[in-house]
């Protein structure tokens, strides 16, 4: 039994407390205290349901030099995540039931965050031949995606949506038009012209979302069951508007945004540091503001990290060759707690929802609220500020665009079904 005393509670329903939260048998037993072997003082801290990340690249199998399940899932619990969806663009891609099972078993043995593998929508993520969706689901896949690649063949994507609809699986897309994107390494515009870097235009995202919405309509018209399209890492104002209109029209669509698109802009590229090279690229301030609006009005359902670790040597290549990606599992919540809630007054309950019930709904999981009887997958967050120190990351990617930023809201205790998986109490 664990007792967390005098702690404020925050979940999608709002802020409450303080309460004395008694945890045992993997559940919240009481909000009014009780006898426990372990008593933790929660004064000044707040307790939230464990976070779920819809989008993380853990690189196993095949690229363990960048990250593996052990380091990635440890980074996750340190970031307050109790659940995580791994992307299938590994080497080889996760496109068989055996590969899904292997990941699940290995992650389970680690006993850290719970792994929910995404599987490839098409064989080898090549966009040509569908994978065995039913068998993948049986093995434990929770989502189908060719993330990292763009689904150039709309017909295959349409068929994939139909197959997934019958199984109740969402299909997630990395929505960028490959032709417009070309070799773009940063946002296309006056700044990319000035810096002499190939631009990836915002229209590449909007154009692909517009196409995919028509593919979704096609699937909706023909499907047995309800297709579900999820737009990954939305980065542009125009893309966001398209998703908003689609939601108003009642289309079964959800969307996520990343910590980097919510806190950084293309201006960061002025230093010519490939640490800021990411796909889709960091955009303009107007796009960033639009995304914040989208978090508030529900156009965006979740904040997802797109945690994309690479070796430091790779990120110290030039801007044309360095790989795309920013690691953020360990800073995502403190970053947004500080930059959005503390600095801009973004409502805390909504922020927590975007890390908990929001992504849970995308996967069709039940909500977790801090009530008696609820599953004790929880995170205790401390408002105490400290600078981001990538040298202390559990992730193998020990660098960060936010290095040195002073943040509060750090996870000091993470519990999965009542079991402590991360502890950094003072």
């Amino acid at each position: 039994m664990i007792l967390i005393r005098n702690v404020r509670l925050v979940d999608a329903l709002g802020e409450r407390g303080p309460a004395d939260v008694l945890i045992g048998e993997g559940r919240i037993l009481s909000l009014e205290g009780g006898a426990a072997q372990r008593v933790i003082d929660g004064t000044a801290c707040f307790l939230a349901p464990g976070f779920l990340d819809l989008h993380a690249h853990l690189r196993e199998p095949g690229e363990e030099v960048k990250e593996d399940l052990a380091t990635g899932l440890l980074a996750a619990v340190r970031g307050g995540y109790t659940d995580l969806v791994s992307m299938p663009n590994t080497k080889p891609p996760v496109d068989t039931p055996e590969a899904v099972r292997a990941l699940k078993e290995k992650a389970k043995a680690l006993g850290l965050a719970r792994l929910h593998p995404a599987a490839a929508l098409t064989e080898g993520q090549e966009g040509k031949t569908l994978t065995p969706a039913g068998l993948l689901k049986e093995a434990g896949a929770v989502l189908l995606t060719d993330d990292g690649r763009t689904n150039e063949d709309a017909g295959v994507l349409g068929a994939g949506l139909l197959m997934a609809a019958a199984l109740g699986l969402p299909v997630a897309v990395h929505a960028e038009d490959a032709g417009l994107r070309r070799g773009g390494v940063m946002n296309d515009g006056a700044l990319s012209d000035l810096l002499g870097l190939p631009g990836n235009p915002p229209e590449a995202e909007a154009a692909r979302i517009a196409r995919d919405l028509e593919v979704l309509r096609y699937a909706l018209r023909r499907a047995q069951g309800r297709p579900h399209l999820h737009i990954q890492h939305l980065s542009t104002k125009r893309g966001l508007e398209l998703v908003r209109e689609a939601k108003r029209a009642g289309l079964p669509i959800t969307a996520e945004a990343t910590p980097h698109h919510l806190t950084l802009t293309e201006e960061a590229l002025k230093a010519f540091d490939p640490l800021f090279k990411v796909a889709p690229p960091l955009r303009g301030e107007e796009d960033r503001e639009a995304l914040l609006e989208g978090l508030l009005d529900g156009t965006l359902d979740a904040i997802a990290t797109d945690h994309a670790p690479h070796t430091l040597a790779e990120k110290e290549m030039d801007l044309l060759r360095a790989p795309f990606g920013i690691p953020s599992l360990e800073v995502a919540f403190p970053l947004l707690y500080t930059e959005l809630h503390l600095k801009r007054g973004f409502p805390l309950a909504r922020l927590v929802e975007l890390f908990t019930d929001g992504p849970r709904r995308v996967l069709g999981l039940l909500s977790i609220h801090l009530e008696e009887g609820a599953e004790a997958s929880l995170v205790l967050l401390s408002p105490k500020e400290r600078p981001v120190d990538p040298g202390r990351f559990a992730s193998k990617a020990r660098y960060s665009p936010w290095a040195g930023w002073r943040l509060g809201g750090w996870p000091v205790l993470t519990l999965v079904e009542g079991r402590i998986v991360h502890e950094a109490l003072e």
Partner: protein
Amino acid sequence: MRHLLDFQGWTRQEVESLLDTAKVMREVLKRPIKKVPALQGFTVATVFFEPSTRTRISFELAARRMSADVVSFAAQTSSLQKGESYKDTLLTLEAMGVDAYVIRADSAGVPHQATRWVKGAVINGGDGRRAHPTQALLDAYTLLEALGSLEGKKIAIVGDILHSRVARSNAELLSLLGAQVFCAGPPSLLPQALPGARLTPSLEEALEEADAVMVLRLQKERMEAGLIHLEDYIARYQVTEARLKRAKPEAPLLHPGPMNRDVELEGALADSERSLVNRQVQNGVAVRMAVLYHLLVGKEGA
């Protein structure tokens, strides 16, 4: 200035002082013994991650004319092929006691990145589409020789502006020296904006009353990428004798080389009296001597 990466943050005075030093160097190069001891004991490395014989030779000659030791690193023959990083390469050279690095790369920003890793002076020898500051300096020097001053002069730059580091650096530098820079090229090869330059898809507009015309090399990759049709380019953007009639009668012609004769420039024009191409190459060595001198010794000794 510790490095020469581009002309951001440079004043007109600093550029003029550098060009004055280049004038002194030009005199040195006319002597029977073309060598001064100014950089004796210094080591200059040319670090070319992208091949370019002309620029590399020009820099190496410039360094040797001033008695510096020169080492050269070329990616295609060296360890970069084996996966050694830019950083490792530069740190290895640093450990050998290099004082100045001339860096050429196909990606914008590599010289900027290098300044974070090495203590020595970094000279941008051309980085991707972004900047080629010594090319712009030698162009400015050559134009000043021909025109006396750049104040209020109209300079036309013609060709693939979008992918050109020469156009970017010249727009930056020539406008700093008071010139009006017009960049003309096909719409698919024009950037959205370029500080210091007026962009136009009209070759005629750029050439009209121009005091000088700079023609850029058209790379084959642009045709391969489907951005332009070669015949269309030649028909509408090739600089020809007839089209040059719009410019001032004596307006000189510049080209950064290497030239595609009868593509961007009518072949006969390349050899005409208007062409300053050889002058550019000669001035290149003097300008690079001046740059090395300013960065390694400081202009006080000039």
